[in-house]
């Protein structure tokens, strides 16, 4: 898509975009506090430069790359995606980013690579929420390699044509639009390709509520609330939640033969 904000790419939604103000003031980022308004208030302590990302594990060309170097290797693309939180609210966000697959191809995964593990920065001085053991720090997430290579999967560096604000996961965060928002790990410092399925933070915190896949699925409820509907931020009435958050056409085939009730 073009950077001007007009949807043109094959993956862009034409739905009304959530205002910048809401996207940057209503965040789940427990490293900066538990309230939705905490990250916008507290995340200014995050130092996003210099920032380097380690890419290692089952790759032929492991490396540590500076964030600006990484951005210079590729041309950031705009992608207008729906974002569905596991808490049953949603937004439409124009991201700027690099397809994760392009980054992975550059480091050449070995034949043993089956999964991709992501790690967030640990720094309680910069991330005051880490002074309390609310979750096991660092926040970790993971994808199957084929999910990571899917063209929809993005490493975001910006939104609304601007730098990513710290409360949204600067300088580099994952965006997987067909999965619940908590898969979108923020402020990434390490990307490791692995042979085995990596642990994920919310799965470790409550395995019966949050699975490894976390695909948006209106038919599989969270144990404590229904996932059949959602509230689009800014709207009054709930709307039905779509399988794979409306991206079924592009991604459903990745899960052929997999029981999505078991693998939630």
């Amino acid at each position, binding site marked *: 898509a073009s950077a001007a904000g007009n949807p043109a790419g094959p993956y862009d939604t034409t739905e009304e975009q*959530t205002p910048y*103000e*809401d996207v940057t*003031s*209503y965040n789940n980022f*427990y490293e900066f506090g*538990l309230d*939705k*308004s905490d990250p916008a208030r507290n995340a200014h302590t995050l130092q996003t430069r210099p920032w380097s990302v380690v890419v290692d594990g089952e790759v032929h060309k492991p490396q540590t790359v500076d964030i600006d170097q990484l951005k210079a290797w590729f041309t950031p693309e705009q992608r207008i995606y729906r974002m569905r939180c596991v*808490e049953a*609210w949603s937004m439409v966000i124009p991201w700027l980013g690099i397809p994760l697959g392009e980054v992975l191809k550059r480091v050449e995964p070995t034949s043993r690579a089956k999964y991709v593990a992501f790690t967030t920065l640990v720094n309680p001085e910069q991330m005051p929420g880490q002074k*309390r053991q*609310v*979750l096991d720090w660092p926040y970790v997430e993971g994808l199957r390699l084929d999910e990571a290579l899917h063209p929809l999967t993005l490493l975001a560096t910006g939104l609304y044509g601007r730098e990513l604000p710290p409360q949204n996961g600067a300088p580099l965060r994952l965006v997987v639009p067909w999965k619940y928002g908590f898969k979108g790990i923020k402020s990434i410092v390490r990307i490791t390709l692995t042979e085995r399925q990596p642990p994920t933070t919310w799965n470790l*915190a409550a395995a019966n509520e949050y699975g490894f896949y976390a695909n948006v699925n209106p038919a599989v409820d969270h*144990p*404590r*609330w*229904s996932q*059949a*509907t959602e*509230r689009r*931020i*800014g709207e*009054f*009435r*709930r709307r039905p939640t779509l399988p794979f958050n409306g991206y079924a056409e592009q991604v459903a085939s990745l899960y052929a033969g997999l029981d999505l009730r078991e693998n939630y």
Partner: protein
Amino acid sequence: MASPPLPWLKPAVLVGGLSPLALLLVQGLQGELGANVIEVVLNQTGLLTLVFLLASLACTPLKLLFAWTWPMRLRKLLGLMAFAYAVLHFLTYAVVDQGLALGRIFQDVTERGFIAVGFLALMLLVPLAVTSTNASVRRLGFPAWQRLHRLVYVAAVLGVVHFVWRVKKDLTEPLIFGAILALLLGIRAVEAVRKRRRVRSSPRPA
């Protein structure tokens, strides 16, 4: 000495108790409640329900511990305000959040423990609000009325369980409510045991 009449006491508590609601309305109208207004209203009305429920349950312990009589004159008002906030909380969920989708609400109440527990707490408060008048006390007789109103202990426990169950990760806040409730019920339990001992050890007629 008899306690002073304090004529301003009830109006002050009424105004103080309704001011968080007024603030919520003003902030809502001015667009100051953030991106998810319904979530804020749900959380605030739920929190206020528990605050007033605990406040109403604190009146008797204050009388027992400090021999203050004025809190007892506020007990009914505090209880009714807890009920009013509980009803607002439920209506926000049922009408605003769920858009009165009765099938979905029924499913929530019957299948989801945390909603079932909250709903049950509200249902237990209904007969207490209905029989809160002096006429009801006379009609039922004080012992029966008092037995009925002990349901508030169950409702408060269920309310705190509802809060604990709802929280995604950090339990600090609901556990503070739980600790205060345990203290208030504990004081009553100690007093009940002492009363029984007193009755047993008092000289009986031959």
